[in-house]
């Protein structure tokens, strides 16, 4: 499923952004940060329990990645490369604080699945676990509430990783219609997701 989601088109977007960063475009790196920051935070959370330290290590991860961007040759996907940097940064952080890093290597895909059995530790606090469940439920409920054509289009795009042309063939409609349906589906989900994310972040800011 993960391989399907990391489709050729998404990889092309990353490649384009990476090329621009290597050319000196810092704003392109900002987009890469916004795209992968929450996944990287979840990955680092597998190694480090304290949420404040997770944020610091995540920030250090991206700064390291930016410094080493010139060495990235595109042999692997950008997120795979970023995943390694995050894991090494988290392990170095544990060693620096006289804590033993886990010896088990976490696979890139296994580390990110909800139903993964290879969970190093349940580091999340009950509050953060509750927030995560609310996030999942909000998205799922928003998708279920979509009209059938929008739900199918967004599912074929996000879950199955099909291109607009493939979705158009599957649904028997023009590509423009597919583009519009996917956009409207995202807008509908975002209307439910945005208040939750803003509220969660405000609560987190207060409790931090």
């Amino acid at each position, binding site marked *: 499923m993960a391989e399907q989601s990391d489709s050729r088109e998404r990889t092309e*977007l990353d490649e384009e952004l990476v090329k621009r960063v290597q050319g000196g475009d810092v704003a392109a790196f900002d987009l890469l940060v916004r795209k992968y920051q929450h996944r990287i935070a979840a990955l680092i959370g597998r190694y480090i329990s304290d949420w404040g330290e997770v944020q610091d290590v995540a920030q250090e991860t991206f700064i390291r990645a930016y410094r080493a961007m010139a060495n990235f040759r595109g042999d692997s996907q950008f997120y795979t490369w970023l995943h390694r940097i995050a894991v090494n940064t988290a392990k170095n952080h544990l060693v620096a604080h006289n804590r033993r890093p886990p010896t088990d290597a976490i696979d890139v895909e296994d580390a990110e699945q909800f139903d993964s059995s290879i969970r190093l530790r349940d580091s999340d606090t009950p509050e953060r676990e509750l927030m995560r469940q609310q*996030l999942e439920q909000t998205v799922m409920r928003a998708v279920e509430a979509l009209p059938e054509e929008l739900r199918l289009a967004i599912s074929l795009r996000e879950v199955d990783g099909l291109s607009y042309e493939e979705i158009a063939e599957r649904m028997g409609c023009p590509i423009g219609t597919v*583009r519009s349906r996917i956009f409207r589906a995202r807008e509908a989900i*975002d209307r439910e997701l945005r208040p939750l994310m803003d509220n969660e972040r405000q609560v987190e800011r207060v409790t931090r």
Partner: protein
Amino acid sequence: MNTVDDIEILQPGPDPDKLERFHRQQLSAMLDAELSHDQARFLRRRLEHDAELSGCFERWQVCGDVLRGRHVSLLPPDFAERVARGIATDGTVSVVIADGRRPRLLRWGGGAALVASVALVALFVGRPGAVDAPATTTPTLANAAPVTPAPVAIDAIDAIADASMQVADLQESAPATVAAAAARGATERASRGQSQRAAVRAGQGRQQAETRAIASSPATRAGEGAGAHAGMAIAMAGAAAAETGFSDVPAVARPWPRASSLSANSSFSVRHGERFAAPSWDARETRTSTVLPRFPVDPADAASVPGASQMLP
């Protein structure tokens, strides 16, 4: 098939809300790599300063990650800005470090410049021989030895450098006397017409012997500054030049012609007179040459050389 879907696609309108909707439509297509390169380039430019659009980009990524069953932990909304500040601070730190080193370099560089300027002033201004020299003999000297001043002065300057190298080995000796000894050796080298470096090696033993001998006298321990060394060296070089046949030192030790020391007949002036004798690289060679025209052409010489006047224009 819904025709409304096709009509509303990617058609920007004058309404700001419709324009934002148009940008979000483009953003959705860009996330799926279904946007043209030019449109994606313009949209990336817009994302740089459109916080609302970049926030939408971030939320749609979270939405996609959740739909794909990926584990996400929501970071604070200013996390990307913190990373950007960290990157900028990283660059700023290097700049700050560079700025912290710069005053040190400036301080040392300023000291070096100060020493060099003092040495230069002492070299060309603070020459005691120039004050003591009789003013009436200067034009005569300039006429008598028009070519030799510059080489002697250059040798004296080189001798100062050589002497400074020797001073490092002779801690007890007075630097001025070392410079004087080296200047004397320089005048000897000039009279022999040998290479300066070779002459330094040949006369090093004798110079050191002289240096030690002179350094033993207490009167030579007076000066310690570099400018004093240079001035004394020039003065002594002038004195040594006087011993070699040039009676007046100040005009000789000067590395360039001074206007006050140049008469109308000196070799540094250009004049079309009867007594024009310089510049002359080798007078004997030009007089014996029957092929090449001589320059400058003196009417008297042209008369003495057959055929030379025929080559004149």
